[in-house]
């Protein structure tokens, strides 16, 4: 770790105010029982005692994004001739996401391997990612749905974050974990951290790791899920209770599928990109009317397989799930992805196959 600072609880709003100079700062706030990320401003009280219900995914990957504006214009000399004017629109405001959890920030490392690579760079994503910093709060008490320690992460994981806060007596120990994060530490609200705070933070981090339920290794699931690809009996069973909404995917910090539509009215319109979800019938619906994923069993297989098998396979290791547990906690019927992965690893395969 680099330079360490101390933030007293009473100085939180002073620091947030400083961060908000010339930037948008998103903080978790309570709205009718739900905790969601909203812009910080005077009087806004961040909720730091628990994980937010919606992750800060919108900060870098908005649910609706305008890719371009277009307009048609008729040539007054020849009305049969129509010109098309296209304007690309990239919107990447300077942003700090404050008070997310390690899983929230780590989620974007999953996106990075897809949207910002040597071969393909998605400018919309990449520019917003570059203009967004994460000040993350280490978790001091896991929720019943948390399993970050089973997917190669931990409640104090700084992967994907720029600054890590650890709760200590009367405030937080503030550590920069990236070069970009260092710049955020240069604020009068932050004091040099006394040695005692550093020791407390170390103890708090160890306690946080120890408080997690025992880790199980999700890595072997990659091969097991492929083995079960054609075992539709297995998939029918584990998906029986799923009602095919998209809540699990829209709340997931690592789900990155999108769809593109043209929204046109008269001579003007825009091409937008919106979140998609593999739990929906439309996801792979082909123009012919054929759907390669005709039932919820096929769709749930895609979700679990993508995260725990196909993605780790393509990217040589990392699992596309950060273990945040939102898909379990907020699923209306409590579908438990941990259970599905474990059953896939434990149960014998009835009909082995390859995709």
């Amino acid at each position, binding site marked *: 770790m680099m330079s360490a600072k101390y933030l007293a609880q009473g100085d939180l709003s002073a620091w947030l105010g400083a961060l908000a100079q010339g930037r948008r700062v998103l903080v978790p706030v309570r709205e*009718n029982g*739900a905790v969601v990320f909203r812009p910080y401003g005077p009087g806004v009280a961040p909720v730091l005692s628990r994980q937010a219900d919606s992750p800060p995914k919108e900060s870098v990957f908005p649910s609706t994004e305008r890719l371009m504006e277009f307009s048609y214009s008729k040539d007054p000399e020849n009305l049969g001739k129509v010109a098309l004017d296209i304007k690309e629109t990239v919107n990447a405001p300077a942003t700090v996401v404050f008070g997310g959890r390690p899983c929230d920030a780590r989620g974007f490392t999953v996106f990075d391997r897809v949207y910002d690579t040597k071969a393909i760079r998605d400018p919309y994503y990449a520019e917003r990612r570059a203009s967004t910093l994460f000040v993350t709060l280490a978790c001091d008490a896991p929720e019943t749905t948390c399993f970050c320690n089973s997917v190669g992460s931990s409640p104090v994981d700084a992967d994907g974050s720029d600054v890590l806060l650890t709760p200590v007596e009367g405030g937080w120990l503030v550590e920069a974990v990236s070069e970009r994060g260092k710049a955020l530490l240069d604020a009068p609200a932050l004091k040099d951290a006394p040695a005692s705070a550093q020791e407390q933070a170390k103890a708090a981090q160890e306690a946080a790791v120890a408080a997690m339920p025992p880790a199980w290794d999700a890595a072997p699931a990659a091969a097991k899920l492929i083995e079960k690809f054609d075992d539709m009996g297995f998939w029918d069973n584990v998906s029986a209770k799923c009602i095919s909404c998209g809540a699990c995917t829209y709340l997931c910090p690592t789900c990155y599928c999108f769809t593109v*539509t043209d929204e046109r009215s008269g001579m003007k319109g825009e091409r937008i990109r919106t979140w998609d979800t593999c739990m929906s019938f*439309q996801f792979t619906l082909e123009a012919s009317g054929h759907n390669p994923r005709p039932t919820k069993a096929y769709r749930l297989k895609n979700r679990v397989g993508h995260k725990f098998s196909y993605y780790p396979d393509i990217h040589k290791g990392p699992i596309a799930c950060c273990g945040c547990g939102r898909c379990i906690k907020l699923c209306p019927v*409590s579908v*438990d992805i941990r259970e599905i992965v474990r059953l896939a690893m434990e149960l014998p395969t009835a009909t082995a196959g390859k995709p």
Partner: protein
Amino acid sequence: MPILDELKAAIAKRLPELDVVIGWGKGFDALHHTPVFITSEADLDKLELGPLSVQNLATYLTRYPKTKKIGVVVKGCDSRSVVQLLQEKLINRENVVVFGFPCEGVVDLEKVKRALEGQGMEIARVSEATFQGERCTLTTGGKAGSLPMADLWADKCNRCQYHDAVMSDEFVGQRLDRKAEDAYADVAAFEAKPLAERQAFWQEQMSRCIRCYACRNACPLCVCRDQCIAQTREPNWVSQRTGVEEKFMFQMIHASHLAGRCTECGECERACPVGIPILLLKRKNNKEVLELFDYRAGIDPEAKPPLLAFKVEEEKINERGW
């Protein structure tokens, strides 16, 4: 005999003639039950019943082919969904076996969450929970807490008129024969607010919507599902945008498609991951339907829902008095 054992015995008796029986079992933590699908006697051990049995399992009935023989365990309110599905011929009477019981009520986990937060505890860290008589006792992170049950019942249970299933093939336990009043006071209070305030309320609430359609998919009577107007591309009725307008538009579609059909099971609102109080919209419609047509959905399998019927002259609609 405890009611759960009675239920297991009743299911065991009917199981040989059924493909599957849907009930509740233990969920991922001490505060959750989850749907379980019973296909053999060995599965009966998985069954649970009590104030955490919140999901309306009738929603699964239309997810199977009509030819499947399905058993379903229902609370009083859920039984109304079954009746409504029968009225609309969306399920086959002879292929469904309904297991009813006297329901004391279910807890609203939102209320548990708020009550615990008041005591500095987090619902997501509860390791133990028991519901006994008037109190619910909980343990989180080694700390014990106790909440009065009176504060935790779902709103629908506080105004429940149908604790005992309105129809069932197998009824276990003693009927409660209890009935509360429901004068739609919540709707009336909302209607009393100025229009601008009501509009501002929905704009703020809907701004949080993630357009996930959990509200739609949890609803036992929302049966278009894959063909839902909100998602069709050809024609593209509703934009894919996630602005407040589109999101509110969808709720209006949902509410109007449920007018006179919605049985107020509350699943749409319970399913919403970001706590949007959409049941209020459904209750508004139901209040109108009750006032205009004297009709409550899902009570009588032989009745015809008013918006699926046609009368030249409606008694309470003044069609020619302009």
